[in-house]
């Protein structure tokens, strides 16, 4: 058994925080797919036809990322997907801000007013991305 270093303790903490965060973020979207589809539509990026399939799949990818991070299973792969998905979110939010869209972010909850796209959301996501990359580095070769 390896002795637990401060680094591995940090990795466990990051893993658990991100795990809870992703599960929390997916709940509203899983409960109300039509609403989430509308949020995606408002970004005006995807072709109309593809919106629903994304609204169905994305929350489940998030939930699986959250569960695997919490349980410590397949952390490397989970962190890779987390980083990828968060990078996409960052690009989407920045593109919405640059185009002057005053739309709902759809980041964590689907409440209309409190969660519009903003630089604050971008910074939050950059922190999440940093956490994901850190986990990826820690677990890049791991079997678990």
């Amino acid at each position: 058994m390896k002795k637990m270093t401060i680094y591995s303790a940090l990795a466990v903490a990051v893993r658990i925080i991100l795990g809870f965060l992703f599960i929390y973020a997916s709940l509203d979207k899983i409960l109300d797919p039509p609403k989430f589809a509308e949020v995606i539509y408002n970004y005006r990026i995807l072709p109309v036809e593809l919106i629903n399939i994304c609204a169905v799949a994305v929350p489940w990818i998030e939930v699986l990322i959250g569960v695997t991070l919490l349980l410590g299973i397949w952390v490397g792969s989970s962190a890779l997907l987390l980083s990828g998905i968060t990078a996409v979110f960052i690009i989407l939010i920045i593109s919405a801000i640059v185009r002057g869209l005053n739309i709902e972010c759809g980041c964590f909850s689907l409440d209309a007013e409190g969660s519009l796209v903003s630089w604050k959301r971008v910074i939050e996501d950059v922190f999440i991305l940093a956490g994901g990359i850190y986990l990826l580095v820690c677990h890049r070769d791991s079997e678990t």
Partner: protein
Amino acid sequence: MRKVKYIIASILSSLQSVTMKNISLSLNVLYRSTVFMLIAIGFALIYNSISPKGIKLITPYRQVVVGDNIYKIPIFQPRKLMQKSFIETKVHAPDEIDLKSAYRHYTEGITLFIDTRTHEKYRLGHIPRAISIPMETFDYAAPILTNTPKDQKIITYCDGEVCSQSIDMAVYLDELGFSDVYFFVGGWLQWQENGFPLTEGDRP
């Protein structure tokens, strides 16, 4: 813009440091990521097919032709609520009007303006005399509509160019038999930006 460039640069450099620092992702991680995605999509499809709020996988939409423009208006409703598939339904199109003509109609005072945004947004500010019918809670049998003569000139609006409720509403009104329906593309944002009259509160 500088801020954007800075943030993009910092994201790129952090990604680079992962790949550059002699770190090769093990194939195992990549392979498992793919399996992971497939499992998630599997769960998603199963849940979507049994959930009462499940939606059609390919977004149904109405196609509205206005002049040379074709608008695809998606319909976001649980699969069970959709009585028929609206896919590629072509609807007779209400016309779009610009800020100038919207203002002209406003000053003439005959046209009925319909604010299709939420009640909260309406309360914070709207075009004077406009009535509030949020698209979210649209009801075909609303008294305000059944009491309005079918030849009444109507202009619908929402936030601005990026919202679609005004077009949706215009299409519905058109289906209900109203013959003189328009939607104001620039919407509330453009109206406000140009300093035209506005009013607050629950009443028109």
